[in-house]
């Protein structure tokens, strides 16, 4: 059923404002060329491509943005930011969505659930960078 009632009230505006505040980027300068999604090495794992997520942010659809896994699949490799023709730091927008969600429920990765043998073999650089991005 492809029917979507989009309202553009205060909640949506606050969401956009918060994302822009955290990321320091102007969401509206994106003209949806899709180059970030094209260059992203992980698009195949994302249920919404990067530019679709940015579009949802532009329209303020907080629930649908937070429901997507795009910003969690993102590995902050910054290929998108380096190549964005509109000079948007796309990776910062992904980080902003992560921060927004983490500041509500602080553990995307439940540290205590990580099996012991995984912890035993992983280099600490993996844990440090993962916890920096997926826990608050």
């Amino acid at each position, binding site marked *: 059923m492809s029917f979507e009632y989009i309202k553009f009230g205060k909640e949506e505006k606050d969401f956009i404002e918060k994302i822009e505040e955290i990321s320091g980027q102007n969401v509206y300068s994106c*003209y*949806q*060329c*899709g*180059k*970030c*999604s*094209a*260059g*992203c090495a992980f*698009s*195949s794992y994302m249920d*919404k*491509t990067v*530019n*679709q997520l940015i579009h949802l942010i532009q329209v303020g659809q907080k629930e649908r943005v937070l429901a997507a896994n795009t910003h969690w699949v993102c590995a902050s490799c910054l*290929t998108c930011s380096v*190549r*964005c*023709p*509109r*000079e948007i730091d796309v990776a910062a927008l992904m980080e902003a969505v992560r921060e927004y969600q983490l500041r509500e429920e602080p553990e995307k990765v439940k540290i205590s659930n990580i099996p012991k043998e995984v912890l035993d073999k992983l280099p600490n650089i993996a844990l440090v960078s993962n916890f920096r991005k997926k826990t608050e």
Partner: protein
Amino acid sequence: MKIGVYICECGSNIAGTVDVEEIAERAKEFPNVEVSRVYKYMCSDPGQELIKKDIEEKELDRVVVAACSPRMHEPTFRAVLEDKGLNPYVLEIVNIREQVSWVHEDMKEGTEKATSLLKGAVVRSSLMQPLERKKVGVNHKALVIGGGIAGIQAALDLADMGFKTTLVEKTSSIGGKMAQLDKTFPTLDCSQCILSPKMVDVSRHPNIELLALSEVIEVDGYVGNFKAKIKKSPRYVIEEKCTLCDDCVDVCPVITHDEYNQGFAPRKAIYISYPQAIPASYLIDPDACLGIDPLICAKCRDVCGPEAIDFDMQPEIIEEEYGSIIIATGYETYPIENIGEYGYGTIPDVISGLDFERLLSSGGPTGGKILRPSDGTIPKTVVFVHCAGSRDPSKHLPYCSKICCMYSTKHALMYKHLVHDGTAINFYIDIRTAGKDYEEFYQRAAEEDHVVYIRGKVSELFQDGDRILIKGVDTLSGETVELHADLVVLATGMIPSEGTKKMANLLNVSIGINGFIREAHPKLKPVDTAISGVFVAGTVTGPKDIPETVSNASGAASRAAGILAQDELEIEGTVAKVEESLCRGCGLCAEACPYNAIELKAVNRYGHTLQVAFVNEALCKGCGSCAAACLNGAINQLGYTDSQILALISALGEE
């Protein structure tokens, strides 16, 4: 001394926040005011009649009009004064609309301000001196710089109007970028077929002097009297004698890249860029030739039947005078070597739009067959990447070049015509078809020729084996797309050509942030420049398609003809004037003048030769910078002398 004061209500524009009757009454007490009237619309005919009648009956010496900005109706009221035999420069306009009524709401304050402005104006008006408009002779020759379609059109128009025109072209033949095209959108006429007739007209037109292989190196003087120096490089082939028999090419030992074919085909040191070239003659490329001075090989001369080859040709400097100049130096395509994600131009099968044009054209390196530059096979899948380096403020061109969507669609369509079982895929962001029949052309490409349009910008191109891997996206279906293509054409945008930068410096015409020349007014004066007498035509001021360029060129030609058609030009009276006795030749005014209209001249004063400032009134725009810069008031701008302005200021100060 009798001054007439006329206050305009301008409907409610002024009367809305200024008590016009009140200030008319007050004006009566101002010094030397003979009559002070109010009228609803001073600029209307009855309004003008009112002033004319007063000048006559009351023998007024000065007229002060309190109304809208002088930029609106100064000429109108000057004509009124002239009509009644009064010198037009004794008119003083006070702006009580933009500077008073439009910016104030309070009636009382508005009226106070209008009164004090009016008082100042009346005081100044009494000090005003009659001035004459100077006349300057006009040279009835036009100079067109740049031999592309814009230059050709402008030169033909001017020549048809009967004016002698010199068309200067840097390369060996006119025709510019259009000559390199195969077909033109949206009608798919062959570019050469519609261009060469005009080129032949240029060569046969009695009023056009064509200077190929030439560059304008110096221009001075002013509107109507430009002196230009043109350097004509030697062709080493006598144009009249050369019969284009092509015998010399076979014997010439040197092989080099053919710029006309974008480096895809070879040419010899002696060559003609393309068969329909005008001037229709071969030339020797001095850099490629083994040696002209000292002579090394000379095989071409030995075999040349009509003995058209002359190694002793020297570069010559041609000096001529022109009434007006048209800059039509065209554009370059944005180099694909700048775009890192698409391989910096190092991937052989990733080529630019112009390269693909050469592949398409029958006179091109592949005789019109689409072959891959790497291995010469016919590409089964061709990808056209729109906006390659355009709409990209982060690293490349921030603007859209208008024509790339159309020429990419044309390329895709032509490719499908030539390779029926091939697939043409266009990666685009927005298809922009703003011209006449452009949208229909785009529909035709999609409907009839099944060109596949995928909305999404390509992120990266790799050489993967002998094919090219494209990492793109389809934002409409929301998936990233990876596909292999045999050939990739990058639709790059337009950037200002080298010639444009040089000519802009030479004629000190201002340039916009993207390097294109800035028109006098983007909407209302599209073909003029800030320097009067210098006009611009074609892509020199920004990306344009061919129809726009041609109409732009005709516009420039008519504007240029506007000057050439007159016997003499009137120069505004309010120019700068030097009081020689006060001038000590420091040159501050010369530096301050934005139009370098002032130069220091040696003058013999009581046996000593001194440097004194001299104003070239034709160049002077009356901006007043020199008067402001001069330390001891030696230079003054007529109509706005220091004394007048100081009087006005003190009047404003009084209660």
